[in-house]
């Protein structure tokens, strides 16, 4: 009896070990690049997180074009810096790639959470873009449009309350950029995540907040979108004006999920994945499954530009952006 039990327990442990996941075999390849074993794709967030979900959908269809299994490796911790540290220190042989999430990635560099800089990575392409929007409660009669909100803010300086998804987190940056450009002061209440941020708005603690388009997909009746960040209106919100056309904040703001390799990979590797992911993102089956989020393919050059631009933007926040 005891032996059977010991065996059963040993079996449990093997299962537990198996759950830790196996590493991919990594070997040098010669000639035109082609991965010669499973490709590891690092996601700097937990399994089930937004990035993880979209990454897994992309990986599923990209395997066909990459010609190998893609293993998602969730490396959560330190606001993403754990995963990005691991990606930056991986061997640049094209067997390990990963997602970098702008602008969180840039913030982690500014805050020196990891040992990497933007030069530690070779961007491959952009996968998903989420644009920031300004929202209020649907039944809040004070703010029929954005101008009403701005006027109220100017008339009651420092009284409007905006919930955010954390101190100096992406939606706090958005609210601050909007308020700065509109010339009014407000109080920022840092919540732990976007869910709590919206609960604070709906519970009438906050007056307005900045979130990203997919965050309100299930609450179309309870919130009203006043404006989007950027120079062009969004196809899914054709009636909502941009901040830029209303004369406020000029640039696009939001978050991007880019794919990158560790710096030092050959041109060929970047080209190979750039093409493979482009094909995957155009695959009709992929398009059918990814309808719930905004796929936004950008090639390596444009992605590199985006990373640099976001880095400059994030670094610019250090002076004169926040209230002291």
């Amino acid at each position, binding site marked *: 009896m005891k032996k059977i039990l010991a065996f059963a327990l040993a079996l449990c442990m093997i299962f537990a070990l198996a759950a*830790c996941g196996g590493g991919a075999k990594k070997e040098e390849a010669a000639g035109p690049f082609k991965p010669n074993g499973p490709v590891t794709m690092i996601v700097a967030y937990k399994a089930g997180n937004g990035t993880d979900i979209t990454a897994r959908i992309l990986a599923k269809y990209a395997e066909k074009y990459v010609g190998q299994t893609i293993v998602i490796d969730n490396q959560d911790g330190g606001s993403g810096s754990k995963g990005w540290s691991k990606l930056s220190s991986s061997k640049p042989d094209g067997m390990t790639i990963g997602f970098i999430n702008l602008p969180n990635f840039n913030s982690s560099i500014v805050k020196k959470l990891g040992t990497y800089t933007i030069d530690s990575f070779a961007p491959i392409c952009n996968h998903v873009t989420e644009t920031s929007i300004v929202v209020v409660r649907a039944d809040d009669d004070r703010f029929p449009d954005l101008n009403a909100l701005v006027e109220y803010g100017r008339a009651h300086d420092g009284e409007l309350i905006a919930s955010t998804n954390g101190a100096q987190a992406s939606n706090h940056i958005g609210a601050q950029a909007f308020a700065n450009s509109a010339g009014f002061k407000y109080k920022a209440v*840092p919540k732990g995540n976007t869910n709590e941020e919206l609960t604070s708005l709906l519970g009438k603690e906050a007056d307005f907040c900045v979130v990203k388009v997919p965050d309100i997909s299930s609450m179309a009746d309870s919130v009203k979108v006043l404006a989007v960040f950027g120079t062009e209106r969004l196809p899914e919100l054709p009636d909502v004006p941009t901040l830029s056309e209303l004369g406020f904040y000029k640039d696009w703001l939001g978050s991007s999920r880019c794919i990158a390799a560790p710096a030092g990979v050959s041109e060929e590797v970047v080209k190979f994945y750039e093409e493979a992911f482009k094909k995957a993102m155009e695959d009709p089956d992929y398009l059918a499954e990814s309808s719930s989020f905004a796929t936004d393919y950008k090639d390596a050059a444009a992605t590199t530009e985006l990373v640099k631009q976001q880095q400059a933007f994030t670094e610019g926040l250090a002076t004169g952006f926040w209230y002291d």
Partner: protein
Amino acid sequence: MLSTLSVMGQGFLHAMSPINLIMMIAGVAMGIIVGCMPGLSAAMGVALMLPLTFTMQQDTALIVLGAIYCGAIFGGSISAILIHTPGTPASAATAIEGYQMTKRGQAGKALFTACYASFWGGLLSCISLYFFAPLLAELTLKFQSAEYFWLSIFGLTIIAGVAGKSLLKGLMSGALGLLLSTIGSDPGSGMPRFMLGGNSYFYDGINVTCALIGLFSMSQVFMLAEKKITERAQASKVTDKMSLTREERKTIRPTIIRSWIIGNLIGILPGAGASIACFLGYNTSKQFSKHKEQFGKGSIEGVAGSEAANNAVTGGSLIPTLTLGIPGESVTAILMGGLIMKGLQPGRMLFNEENALVTYTFFAGFVLVQFFMLGIGLLGSRGFAQISRLSDAILIPCVTVLCVVGSYAINKLPEDVLVMFVFGIIGYLMRKLDLNTAAIVLALILGPIGEKNLQNALIISDGSPKILFSSVICWVLIVLCIVGILSPLFMNKLEKKAEKEAETEDPNGPIEEEDLV
């Protein structure tokens, strides 16, 4: 309303998918094994199985964790009845009457009663889950910064006051947990605090699951390892039939109903869990019993009172966890971790169009799990009893390996294993000093919630503390906090009286307390 009902119905259909059914059986069986082995608690079982759920669908993952939870709380009664050693603290009161019945040759009857009462306790607690969880989720809009602040204070007063034997030691444990919870970035400004030289590992604070595995399981290994390894008592043979007569079932019916209400309320209270519920359930069954003379000699009402109460906690403690994000006890704290890992945030979101189906599938799974618990419990108790006798010589290495693997598998960080070991040592020292390890875990969770919301409330009010007293809910919570602090004065009396009576009337001598975490 109609749409909610249809989603509830769909939830049942989804819960009955083959994979979910298989995982329910596996989860319940695993839970019972973990529960009946002295040294492995329900919290540890759920924590260790958490990494295994990473690859599962949202609903399946939650169902497995729920199944382990329910199974473990019931499983503790098997060893309590057959070898007079409660497998988990939740069955401490069951051992009193249960082992007496075993000595009288009624082990089968005792096991059946435990199983039957656990089943009803768990099943009835699902009613409150179905009814109150969506209701409270709607109410969460009324819970803003000030209310959340008081809620976390309330939870802390409960663990300090009710959960421990001494108020002073409870407060000390809670304060230590609060101190540890300040490690990481400041929730308001993002300032790094105590992060050990800019190391980003502690950016999000201490990993609660690793801390918990260390505090509850690793420390248990240390406790076991320092003792001379002795064979556990032979599990008594089950000689009689596992059943109850119709009259007996009728006798325990009111007991089960009372214990359900007690267990459910205890479950909903943040900070109080199954280990308290079983004693309260046992006591109440005694007070109301028409056969008081049977208590201490093997009363089925005593077994039913304790077991129905501890399983009624399960559904109850899910309510604040799912709606307010405030876990009722340490097991649900880990379950909440699993929920968040699966991309589900506690609160109203769980009941919106997008997530309602997953949530109700979980609820339905929780209902079905009770039936599997009944079936597996009735058929397999004899076998599980053998497992519970596993020698410490096997148990110690196995639990050590599970602790290391479990803490590593969550984020695949070697630092996590180190944190687990450090907390193992902290837990060991705390047990030696008779401090409350559960208080540390809850303080680790509630500390940041309280701090962040206090900061937020003061930002909104421009620093005026008046905001903390500005709503009815605030005042209700303040009153509850005061009751929580004062509760040891009468609760301790009540519990001590119960334990004393239990001990004086327990001719088997005191219960082995080694496993009471």
